[in-house]
């Protein structure tokens, strides 16, 4: 991605872009994105979008995954594509584990800092090779 970023987007902007549930705001976001500018999206914003779609809009993980892929594969956005491309299939498949926990495991893998030490039984069951349950 060679373009210089024209700014960053926060969680609400991404939510309005995806959901079109506050038409006035969606219109503003659509207008912002009509040019060819590139915008940064922080990991934290994507994680919060996932939490909101899951907990507040009760969206299934498969559709959430589709939405996030829709964002990270859009060339108008600069974000941590590598991390999210790797983590999303695990998030969709492991419904007992939150996106935060899936990301922790993926960070540990990428940093070559395994195992991930945890008290979370569900996490160790979903990632037995990558985690150690502290007892």
């Amino acid at each position, binding site marked *: 991605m060679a373009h210089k970023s024209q700014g960053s987007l926060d969680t609400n902007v991404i939510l309005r872009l995806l959901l079109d*549930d506050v038409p006035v705001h969606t219109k503003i976001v659509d207008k912002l994105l009509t040019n060819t500018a590139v915008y940064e999206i922080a990991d934290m914003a994507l994680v919060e979008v996932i939490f909101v779609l899951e907990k507040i*809009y009760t969206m299934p993980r498969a559709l959430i995954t*589709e939405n996030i892929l829709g964002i990270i594969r859009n060339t108008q956005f600069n974000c941590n594509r590598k991390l999210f491309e790797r983590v999303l299939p695990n998030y969709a498949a492991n419904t007992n584990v939150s996106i935060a926990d899936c990301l922790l495991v993926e960070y540990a893998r990428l940093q070559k800092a395994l195992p991930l030490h945890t008290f979370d039984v569900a996490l160790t069951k979903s990632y037995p090779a990558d985690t150690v349950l502290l007892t």
Partner: protein
Amino acid sequence: MYQTKITSQGTISLPIALRKKYNLTPGEVVTVEDNGRITLYKTPDLSELRAHNKSYVRNRTSESGDGFSAHVKEKYGT
């Protein structure tokens, strides 16, 4: 695995089997990513996503606050 030749103009033809499989139609824009390998993505259609999301917009719970708080409340009960 498919093979396709690059022309002097730098264009390639996608095999018909892949175009059919991924419903790629003429004029459609695809994303090309350089991640050490060249990856081709079907560029996501935002209006399609919004249409799929519509029914969940009506599902919105009365939960107030941000997504992190909803997660923390569910996981840690605080």
